[in-house]
């Protein structure tokens, strides 16, 4: 049974209000950072759209709601990125066209969900555009993406956008408590998850607080020469590479901010020794350039580019080591500097 997340109530009220004013379009694009519940919202919306009771929320009782609950509703199709490249290809969208071409089996309309819509390749996007331009009767398209600017403008312009933002900390904490996350863990979890409660829960369930401590220890090891660049790249490659790199990116951002004189914004989050060593290099502009390079690589690793992850990781780690070494004091005794 699809449910709304507590912080989505107000945005749901907006959708319902639009519907009641007759202003709900046939295509919606949910945009917002990862881990705010766009998929849950899309699922909830399709349950509501297909529900026979036609109320402000899905009834959970009718045949449509039952079929959705069992995952056997014939009038809903979900398109997700596939393959090693994680793209949505034109064949998947052809399915959508075929699905659109016929009437609803249960008779309450049809729903097309497109997850990570930024992963549509050009052909697929064009094929989807045809569907959006000549929408079949009583069919709702819901697309969602954390990087909606990467979508073709023509697709964006055919959809009404709904913006999702991170919930307030109190809301997230309340929800995390309901999900049985112990109170002493969630501040750090939420910090690591950049405020996303869903990710915080995911990290909690995957026991990632431990990984969080490890990656910084590993960098300290690299700094001290206990582990080589290639060894560490190999280690990281087999873990959640994307996640560690996003953490590294946050780490650099924090270091640069402090180099520029900002107050500590995430106290207690990062290993103080390592962070201080970076700050001591006092090369803000070089770190910033590295930060940008890293983010480009992250997008490429994440996206459709054919990038060798080991090589990319080695490049990153070599550059990181080089920048850390530019602090002359830290090289004398081979230990990070303490402020």
């Amino acid at each position, binding site marked *: 049974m699809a449910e709304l997340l507590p912080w989505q109530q107000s945005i749901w009220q907006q959708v319902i209000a639009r519907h009641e004013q007759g202003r709900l379009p046939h295509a919606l694009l949910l945009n917002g950072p990862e881990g705010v519940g766009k998929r849950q919202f899309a699922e909830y919306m399709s349950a509501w759209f297909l529900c026979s009771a036609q109320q402000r929320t899905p009834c959970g009782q009718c*045949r449509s709601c*039952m*079929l959705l609950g*069992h*995952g*056997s*509703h*014939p009038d809903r199709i979900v398109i997700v990125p596939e393959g090693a490249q994680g793209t949505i290809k034109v064949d998947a969208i052809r399915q959508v*066209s*075929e699905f*659109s*071409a*016929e*009437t*609803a*089996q*249960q*008779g309450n309309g049809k729903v097309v969900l497109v997850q990570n819509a930024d992963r549509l390749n050009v052909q697929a996007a064009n094929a989807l555009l045809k569907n959006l331009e000549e929408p*079949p*009767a009583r069919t709702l398209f819901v697309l969602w993406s954390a990087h909606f600017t990467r979508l073709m403008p023509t697709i964006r312009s055919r959809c009404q956008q709904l913006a999702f933002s991170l919930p307030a900390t109190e809301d997230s904490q309340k929800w995390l408590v309901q999900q049985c996350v112990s109170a002493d863990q969630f501040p750090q979890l939420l910090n690591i998850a950049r405020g996303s409660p869903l990710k915080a829960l995911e990290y909690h369930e995957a026991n990632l607080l431990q990984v969080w401590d490890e990656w910084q220890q590993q960098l300290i090891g690299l700094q001290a020469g206990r582990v080589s660049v290639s060894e560490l790249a190999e280690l990281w490659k087999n873990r959640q590479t994307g996640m560690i790199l996003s953490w590294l990116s946050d780490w650099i951002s924090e270091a640069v901010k402090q180099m520029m004189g900002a107050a500590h914004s995430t106290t207690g989050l990062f290993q103080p020794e390592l962070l201080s060593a970076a700050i001591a290099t006092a090369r803000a502009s070089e770190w910033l350039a590295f930060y940008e390079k890293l983010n480009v690589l992250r997008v490429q690793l994440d996206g459709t580019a054919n990038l060798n992850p080991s090589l990319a990781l080695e490049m990153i780690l070599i550059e990181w080591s080089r920048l850390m070494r530019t602090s002359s004091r830290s090289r004398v005794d081979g230990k990070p500097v303490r402020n």
Partner: protein
Amino acid sequence: MKFVISREALLKPLQLVAGVVERRQTLPVLSNVLLVAEGDHLSLTGTDLEVELVGRAKLEQPSVAGSITVPARKLMDICKSLPDGSMIEFDVQEQKLVLRSGRSRFTLSTLPASEFPSVEDSPQAFELTLAQQQLKRLIDRTSFAMAQQDVRYYLNGMLLEVVQGRVRMVATDGHRLATCACDAEVNPAEKIQVIIPRKGVLELVRLISDPEAPLRMLIGSNHIRAHVGDFVFTSKLVDGRFPDYERVVPRNGNKTLLADRQELRTVLQRAAILSNEKYRGVRLLLNPGQLQVFANNPEQEEAEESLLVDYDSENMEIGFNVTYLLDVLNVVGEEQVKIILSDPNSSVLVQEAEDTDSLYVVMPMRL
């Protein structure tokens, strides 16, 4: 749920119902058949989401009512392999179906009936009744012209049109068009047009078994449902507008050819042997009183035929995909066939000499 049924009572509906269940299904429940026992009847439902078929069978004694879904193929294979005249007991225990017959016992996995996407009756459907043979004639005379896997989805199906006193079917693949109509006691408030997908048409016609018996059809906004004998067949519709067939039927033909249907058919069949296998082109040369047919292939083999016909306009040469002409000649019934033409680049109209219920439009081929 618990009931007893004879192998023979179950087998026919089960085979037909299992026939619409596709082997490779993404949703497990779609490989299953829905069984509903009520009183002394069992209903069986199979679906591939595009079409649904419900069959009915009589039970040996009143049942313990209930509903469940079980794997269609396995159930059918078991029933088929039991000896003639067997009695089969169905008993659902703890989410398993236990089948007992003589000294055999089978336990089948099940899924709850609530997972099964069956189609409910649609409240505002338009109802019409035809004799089974009337519908069969409409479909047999036109279905060959449906497209297959065309990107214009509305061509991968057949138009069913109901106007006052008349029911019509139209099919076209973009190269030829076939339409056939019959009189019926119908009185819709306005013209009804729905497009039945290809699979729906072909499955529906398979159910027709008793030419004289009535066939009740319900046309809703999402489905067409037909009650044929003990079966209820439902098909989704194609969402779209069908091309205006009246616009496609040529009105400017000024040359008429009358020929014996069987003679023309055999002449074309023979010529077709040496036509290009891929394009199937034949050249027709029309002279007053005579039709010549030529075909050749890339191996430089040639066929030449001639036939006495009723034709008194000027000489004309026109090419066709011979399959398109043969498809028409295979389904029309009268002795004489009439072909109306205008020029080698325009469509021609083929019909029976006397009866104008069926019309066929064929575009020529440039050879």
